[in-house]
């Protein structure tokens, strides 16, 4: 979230799209209700009318996989009707930047496309620069290649007619949303966008969110109270796991994964430290070398010295262009390129797409370690229905893991608040939390490497690794220490004392921090700030529900990101009634500002508002993504239609996919698979249901796998409510119970009827008679930037079942 949960109440318009907020965030949804109480208009745009829709002012059904068409239509509406907040757009976005002559867009393809490699040469999209390397800007917005005009041209194709034909949303409904949301393009109005996996799990997932960024920047809704782009995290600590780099592509604190081409720290830093030619751009990522050196110091302690590159050489390096995401891991497994694995905190044999492939792939492992509360479809894959366990070679180690309430530590919520949780009860039996599994395991490996040697033993032996795990000690390590006596202002910190803020981190080995974003969360002065539960606030903070002394928030306790854009260039709030920050002539008051500098208007001491971008401006045009500088509508990997009404390019030209014999795809408008399937979770079960199916009172409320479908489709297929149904895709077959409802309706897409069905993915065979993985139907096609699979849109067919074997 750029903002936070409570802040939703400040919105004048709430657009919930790509999210079923009420069902998946039932507690947080109270802030949406609060916004409604305050008079906000609440809109839900989603394929299905859900419990969220029931509490909104209105619901607009949208064909799954057409969000960019819908949002592109809104961008066009904003530009055509001049709803944008012009002063904000000029001062805070790169609308004025002139794009280089090599940029082009023709019939669905951006310039620089290499068809054989299915990739773009992004240098074709670069900005035009002057002799100093600074971007050429035209604040009159008259240059034909300035971002604003290119954007206008790009989205002029997203007419109401084209968008309606693509999305299946009526013109009337399009205008209803566009008008209500675009009314927030005024200085004193704010609109928030709430999204979740409904936007990310597409072959255009990243661009779905980029499209929302364009809208919010045009309307001046970023940085303000009640605005922002708010990712509702479906797991309480997903934000924390992202920050701490649970994924493969970064190191903690959003530092790039080292690649083999950068053999020294200097090479890494050169490639990963942006430089700006604009003197009033803060270019915050210019500090990255300090954060990386401090991270290495945190990992390797006294062994990390400036002379040895802080042990950078001991880190594993990726190969350029190689994809290390879980989808590629599973494919490697299938092709016998992996021998063993640890699967923790996820149930891939139920939750990953094309589960039949995943289940077959896991059989190739010699050994597997799982840590679970219960047996799962993953831990027990070797004895899944239809296989003879004797033919499966995998040796499985199932470690009992502690439940959330059986461990203490921090959780970073969607709003980036770091909150400490106490242990309620001791873990049952021999169960341990993950850290109490990993810390001794690494110590055992260290012992073995010390005694027996092996390949590169230093990588483990030189680590600053503890003998035992202690949650609070780890929180201190994450914050970071001084490794040499250091003077900050008039105070001297001793070696071993906590660093007070990330502004004090250095690249000379005198500081450590396991994550620079969290530096300042645990200090000598105030202790463990994640334990703060103080409701005190100033009247200005009270006006927007900002509680700076409740827990702590990264970065530096800033509750609303990009808040320098909530004020004009002189530091005066655009909406004084809901001011986030304000310049009082000598300092900022309110929230912690995005940097202490004077407002942007001050040519000497001021800084541009968007401190995290190299040139200080928010990016309407973003030349850094794999699939284009502007979001463009492409159909899902399995389109239910044959053509794109305003482009020659049906699917994304660069989406990724696998092509083993287990990765089959339906053709465009495939008559064998004419129905769109979207998949989702629900209130009563958590994600794949591995935990909640073992909670009897939740299973009582949602006992078995269902398929929601319209009355029209049910009639066409001779299916009655409650009937057993067989659902088939090119990849698998799933049984479900029909839920025939008015909450789903057929879409009219380019004059043709397209049916859409929806299924939860919470059911798996280890819970008797409840059904098995819905993901046996979904596709192994991915976003080119993140490799997130397209779980929200694929094509299937359905028929009434004569007999059910999975659901009894």
């Amino acid at each position, binding site marked *: 979230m750029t903002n936070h949960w409570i802040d939703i109440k400040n919105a004048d318009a709430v657009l919930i799209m790509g999210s079923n907020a009420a069902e998946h965030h*039932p507690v947080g949804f109270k802030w949406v209700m609060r916004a409604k109480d305050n008079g906000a208009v609440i809109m839900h745009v989603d394929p299905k*009318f859900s419990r969220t829709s*029931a509490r909104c002012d209105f619901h607009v059904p949208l064909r799954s996989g057409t969000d960019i068409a819908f949002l592109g239509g809104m961008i066009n509406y904003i530009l055509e009707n001049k709803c944008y907040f012009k002063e904000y757009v000029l001062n805070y976005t790169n609308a004025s930047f002139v794009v280089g002559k090599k940029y082009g867009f023709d019939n669905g393809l951006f310039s620089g496309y290499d068809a054989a490699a299915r990739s773009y040469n992004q240098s074709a999209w670069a900005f035009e620069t002057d002799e100093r390397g600074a971007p050429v800007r035209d604040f009159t917005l008259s240059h034909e290649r300035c971002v604003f005009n290119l954007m206008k041209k790009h989205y002029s194709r997203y007419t109401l007619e084209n968008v309606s034909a693509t999305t299946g949303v009526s013109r009337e409904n399009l205008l209803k949303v566009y008008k209500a949301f675009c009314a927030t393009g005024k200085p004193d109005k704010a609109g928030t966008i709430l999204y979740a996996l409904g936007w990310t799990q597409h072959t255009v997932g990243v661009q779905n969110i980029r499209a929302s960024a364009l809208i919010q920047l045009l309307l001046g809704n970023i940085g303000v109270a009640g605005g922002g782009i708010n990712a509702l995290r479906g797991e309480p600590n997903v934000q924390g796991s992202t920050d701490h780099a649970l994924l493969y592509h970064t190191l903690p604190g959003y530092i790039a994964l080292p690649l083999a081409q950068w053999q020294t720290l200097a090479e890494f830093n050169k490639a990963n430290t942006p430089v700006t030619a604009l003197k009033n751009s803060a270019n915050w990522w210019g500090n990255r070398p300090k954060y990386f050196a401090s991270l290495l110091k945190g990992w390797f302690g006294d062994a990390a010295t400036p002379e040895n590159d802080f042990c950078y050489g001991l880190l594993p390096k990726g190969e350029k262009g190689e994809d290390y995401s879980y989808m590629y891991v599973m494919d490697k497994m299938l092709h016998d390129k992996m021998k063993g694995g640890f699967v923790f905190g996820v149930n891939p044999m139920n939750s990953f797409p094309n589960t039949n492939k995943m289940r077959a792939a896991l059989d190739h492992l010699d050994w597997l370690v799982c840590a679970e509360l219960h047996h799962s479809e993953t831990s027990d894959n070797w004895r899944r229905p239809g296989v003879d366990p004797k033919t499966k070679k995998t040796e499985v180690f199932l470690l009992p893991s502690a439940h959330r309430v059986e461990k203490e530590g921090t959780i970073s919520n969607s709003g980036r608040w770091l909150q400490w949780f106490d242990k309620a009860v001791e873990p049952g039996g021999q169960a341990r939390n993950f850290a109490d599994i990993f810390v001794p395991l690494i110590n055992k490996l260290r012992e073995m490497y010390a005694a027996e040697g092996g390949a590169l033993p230093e990588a483990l032996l030189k680590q600053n690794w503890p003998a035992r795990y202690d949650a609070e000690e780890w929180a201190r390590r994450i914050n970071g220490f001084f490794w040499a006596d250091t003077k900050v202002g008039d105070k001297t910190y001793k070696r071993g004392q906590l660093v007070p803020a990330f502004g004090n981190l250095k690249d000379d080995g005198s500081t450590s921090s396991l994550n620079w974003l969290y530096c300042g969360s645990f200090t000598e002065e105030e202790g463990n700030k994640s334990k703060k539960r103080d409701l005190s606030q100033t009247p200005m903070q009270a006006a927007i529900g900002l509680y700076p002394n409740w827990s702590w928030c990264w970065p530096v306790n800033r509750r609303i990101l990009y808040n320098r854009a909530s004020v004009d260039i002189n530091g005066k709030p655009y909406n004084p009634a809901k001011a986030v920050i304000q310049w009082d002539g000598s300092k900022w008051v309110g929230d912690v500002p995005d940097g202490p500098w004077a407002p942007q208007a001050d040519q000497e001491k001021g800084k541009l508002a968007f401190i995290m971008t190299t040139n200080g401006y928010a990016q309407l045009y973003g030349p850094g993504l794999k699939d284009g500088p502007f979001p463009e509508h492409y159909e899902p990997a399995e389109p239910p239609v044959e053509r794109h009404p305003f482009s020659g390019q049906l699917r994304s030209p660069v989406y990724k996919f696998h092509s083993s014999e287990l990765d089959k795809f339906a053709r465009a408008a495939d008559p064998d698979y004419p129905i769109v399937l979207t998949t989702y979770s629900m*209130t009563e079960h958590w994600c794949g249901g591995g935990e909640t199916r073992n909670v009897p009172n939740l299973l009582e409320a949602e006992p078995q796998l269902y398929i929601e479908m319209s009355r029209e489709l049910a009639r066409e297929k001779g299916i009655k409510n409650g009937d057993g149904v067989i659902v088939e895709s090119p990849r698998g077959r799933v049984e479900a119970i029909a839920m025939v409802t008015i*909450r789903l309706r057929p879409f009219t897409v380019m004059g043709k009827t397209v049916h859409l069905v929806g299924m939860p993915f919470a059911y798996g065979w280890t819970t008797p008679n409840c059904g098995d993985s819905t993901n046996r139907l979904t596709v192994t096609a991915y976003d080119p930037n993140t490799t997130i699979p397209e779980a929200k849109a694929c094509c299937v067919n359905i028929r009434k079942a004569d007999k059910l074997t999975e659901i009894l």
Partner: protein
Amino acid sequence: MPKSFLIDTTRCTACRGCQVACKEWHDHPANVTKQRGTHQNPPDLNPYNFKVVRFREHLGADGQVIWNFFPEQCRHCVTPVCVDVADMTVPGAMVHDRATGAVLVTEKSAKLSAEDAQAVIDACPYNIPRYDPATGRLTKCDMCIDRVANGMAPMCVKTCPTGAMYFGERAEVLETARKRLEAVKADFPKARLVDADDVNVIYLLAEEPEHYHDFVAFAQR
């Protein structure tokens, strides 16, 4: 002055926190249920579910979907006819606690004959009590009398995340109910309070009771 609930269905998201929390507080085991083509489960009140969230959908005049949620429970009537009917055969099988307004089933209800137990059930205008064949007793919502007697809110109220449920002194709840009704009328012109003068569990509906459940209002009998 008895206690009352306000259940504002215009704020309910059917998360079923109340349904599950009620079971947890009462240590009720789960029923084995099946998917029957609806989200509503269990299908009905039963000895292990004093509270069930009911789901009902229909199309509005403008073609928009309307999906109503009804967290059903005993109304704890101001004049509980079930107590009178039970008293006719087994005095004390059901009691009306004047201090809280709670209508409670006692262990003496096991002494009711099957026929007399059915008469109590049939007497309820809201079709609430259920017979428990395992104990022979009648079962229904007890207002979490153990919690209320100790100054705590009933479990369902405590759990509700969206502010759909209020609990407090009757006069105060009636006042809140009237204010809420006024507030929601702007969005829902057909909004109403159900049988507010006669019950201590007052529902605020956005439209006619039949769009929620068959036994919402006395008048549906």
